[in-house]
Structures are given as structure tokens and as C-alpha cells.
């Protein structure tokens, strides 16, 4: 083969970043994957994509993260990217209450389009703006408990909890996968090393695959 995936990993997980426009999804992604934050970032048009590998227990887990445009009208394009996702960070802005109110709709959207086992983390971003806070930690926590999602407050600017939020999601996915593997012995939503999967048709944008893995 002309190429091989040069990184080595045990699991490949597809994760989506969703939530209202302007809550900081793209900066969370750039903080996690490149340790960068930009005050001068452009609004996301369509979808963006980045990856990072981390260690979970004794395994290397690679996250393929899709960052989606937040404006409602873009769901016509972005919802196709939910399919096949095994994890999601549902982001709101702790300084804008309306972005928290909309979490319920995002959750519904997510659950309509994804597997029931998807690991969801509710993320209250911009926690550094203490004097502007409009959503209390308690309210968000209570909501997350009710909806059975994980919850964390982050600041992409101050790099607070960003690493933790992603790591927690990936760890929990890994846990689900290990459990499912024990129960069923085979699992179509995850990608054990060395296995190329095909999900649906070639138009299926959710499909994740590891190229060139079987030729060595």
C-alpha cells in the first residue's frame, strides 16, 4: 500500500459536538485537539473535523470528533453526522440561559438519530465568565441527572476541564464497549483494531474507517 494509518490505536470512537451557535464548540475542539484557543474565530459553516488519541486504562483510544454548525437551519446538513456517533458533547453557554433551555431539543435530536447506548455529556462552557453566569451549576446538574447524561462545566479559554470532559466521555464509551463486547461478543457500533467497517451506503457520512489496515 502507498500509505498506512501512521497512528496506532485500539479503538476508534466517533464523537459529535453539538449545541447552540456561539457556545464555544469549535474552541473546545481546538483546545482538546491542538491546545489552542482563538478569540478571533469564525462561525462554523457546515462541519469541522479533528482527531486525538488518548490512553484509557491500558488502551489507546482515538476520537474522531465532528464539530457542527450550531444554527438551527444547519441541521439539514449536520444531523447526518450524528449517525454512528458513540459519544456526544452537548454544549451550552453558562452565560446565556437560552442555550441551556435549548439543550432539551438538542437531546431529542440526538436521541432520534443515534444508538441508545450513546454516551452524552452535558457541557456548560465559558465557566470563566463568573460575573456573567446565568445558569447555575445545580440546575444543570439536576437536569443532567434527570436526563441520565454526564455533566461538566468547562472553560475552553482557561483550559479548565476540557481535557476532563473529553476524557470522561471516551472512558465511558470504552466502558460501554467493553461491557457490550462481553455481552454480545460482537459490536457493530465500535471499531476494534484492524477491522474495517462499512456502515450503510457510501453516502453515509457517519461511516468511520481505518484505511489500509488489512494489507500488512
Amino acid at each position, binding site marked *: 500500500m502507498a500509505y498506512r494509518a501512521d497512528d496506532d490505536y485500539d479503538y476508534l470512537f466517533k464523537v459529535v459536538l453539538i449545541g447552540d451557535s456561539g457556545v464555544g464548540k469549535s474552541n473546545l475542539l481546538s483546545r482538546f485537539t491542538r491546545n489552542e484557543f482563538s478569540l*478571533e474565530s*469564525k462561525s462554523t459553516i*457546515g462541519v469541522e473535523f479533528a482527531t486525538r488519541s488518548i490512553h484509557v486504562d491500558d488502551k489507546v483510544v482515538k476520537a474522531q470528533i465532528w464539530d457542527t454548525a450550531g444554527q438551527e437551519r444547519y441541521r439539514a446538513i449536520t444531523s447526518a453526522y450524528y449517525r454512528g456517533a458513540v459519544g456526544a458533547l452537548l454544549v451550552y453557554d453558562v452565560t446565556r440561559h437560552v442555550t441551556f433551555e435549548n439543550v432539551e431539543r438538542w437531546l431529542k435530536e440526538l436521541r432520534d438519530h443515534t444508538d441508545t447506548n450513546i454516551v452524552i455529556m452535558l457541557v456548560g462552557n465559558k465557566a470563566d465568565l463568573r460575573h456573567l453566569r446565568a445558569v447555575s451549576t445545580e440546575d444543570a446538574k439536576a437536569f443532567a441527572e434527570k436526563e441520565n447524561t454526564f455533566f461538566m462545566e468547562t472553560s475552553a479559554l482557561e483550559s479548565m476541564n476540557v481535557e476532563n470532559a473529553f476524557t470522561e466521555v471516551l472512558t465511558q464509551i470504552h466502558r460501554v464497549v467493553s461491557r457490550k463486547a462481553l455481552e454480545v461478543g460482537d459490536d457493530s457500533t465500535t471499531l476494534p483494531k484492524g477491522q474495517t467497517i462499512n456502515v450503510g451506503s457510501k453516502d453515509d457520512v457517519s461511516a468511520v474507517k481505518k484505511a489500509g489496515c488489512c494489507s500488512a
Partner: protein
Amino acid sequence: MRQLVIYETSASELDIIRDISRTFPSHVFFQQRHGPGQRSLYNVLKAYSVYDRDVGYVQGMGFLAGLLLLYMSEEDAFWLLVALLKGAVHAPMEGLYLVGLPLVQQYLFQFEQLVKEHLPKLGQHFSQEMINPSMYASQWFITIFSYSFPFPLALRIWDVFLYEGFQIVFQVGLALLKLCHDELVKLPFEKLIHALRNFPEDAMDPDTLLPLAFSIKVSKRLEELKQEYEEKNKGSLTQSVSNNKQLKHLHSLKSKQLLSKSP
């Protein structure tokens, strides 16, 4: 236009305000917070969102308006935006921003087919790697290359776009892929996505890219593919805009049928 800005209210006002500083954030004209550039941008977008409430404000429109504002007054930029979206000279473009983004979906379909026809080897590689044009080309269509391409190139494309219409976007897209073809066909999924969003500088040289783009003939096929697309989506997709739930139901029925039919 002034009246639209001052006397009418728009449901999109907050969305517009939030995006003002996120439109060409590093361009000197728009850099200053509440400066003249940002104020003009707000006025044009607000006026449009009132003028055409079906479209309102959609992310991406700011890049069109912003580019126009570098060369003309607010008033002219507003009316040129109206002319472009309503199709005063060329085909209307409002479908890029209407609910369901119908024209974006159509363009993505057309582009995917054109790639397969003009660059079969690359088209096949994309299929194999499960690369879909929505992963890299949505921005090209929604902002007519003004979102992430170097300004000198974007302007050259816009000259042609204003004069000849939207097909230059397809031609430039194909020309970019053609210039990087030999590199792209070697890349696996992740690197491919990265490469499709970060073209090398020499490929983005207008004097290389545009002549190549002009040499690619697409107008006849675009028309045929448009009809093919409409045919394909007759019934199901036209209803989807008004009734998303029904569409989902239809889809689930369809997939169930497919499942039960497959051996």
C-alpha cells in the same frame, strides 16, 4: 434600507450580533469592535433579515455581505445581496439559506457526480474512503469561497461569479481537486479531509487555478444533474421541508421495507 434597519424588528437580531465579530475577524475593516465595518455588516444583514423573513439570517450570509461591503456602500451591498439571492441576473440563490438548505443539498449532489465524471479515479477513492462533499465543499457553496480562501483568490472568483453566475464555484472546486489529484488519491480518510480543507498555496494561485477552472465545461451537465436530482427527490424531499417528522417516518418505513426485502 435604512427604514428596514431602524423601524422593523427581526427575530435574527441576536444571531446577527453574535456573528458580527466572527465574520472576517482578522480583516482590518471588520476588526474593530463596533467600528464602521461591523456596524455596516450588522445593518446589511439586519435589513436583509427583515426584507426576506423566509430566509432571515443564516450563518454564511455575513461573508457575502462582508465581501461586498469592502467595495460599496451599505445601501448598494444590501441591494446586491437582494439581487443575488432573488436572482435578478443569474439563477436565484436564496435556496442556499432557506429551511432545509435545499440548494446546498442540490449543489453537493451535483458536485459529487461531477467529481466522479471529471476525476473518476479520485471519485472512486472518495467513495472508498467514504468522503462526501458535505465534509469539505459546503462552505464553498454557502459562502462562494469567501469563508476560508485567501482574499486575492476569493475576489478573482467573485469577479467571474458576479458576471457569469454560480457555475464558476463548481469549476473552481473541480480545478482545485484536479490540481491536487495525484496527492489526494494517496491519502486515507483523515488526511484526506485535512487536505481538502487546506489546499497548498500553489494550487490557490489564481493565475493557475482560474484558467484551469475555465477549461472545465460543466453547464450542460449541471442542468442535467439538476433534473436528475429533482427527479430523485420528487415526493419525499419536497415534503420534508414542511414536515420533517413525516419524512423521518417515511425513511423508517423505507428502511424497514429494504430490510425485509433484502435476502
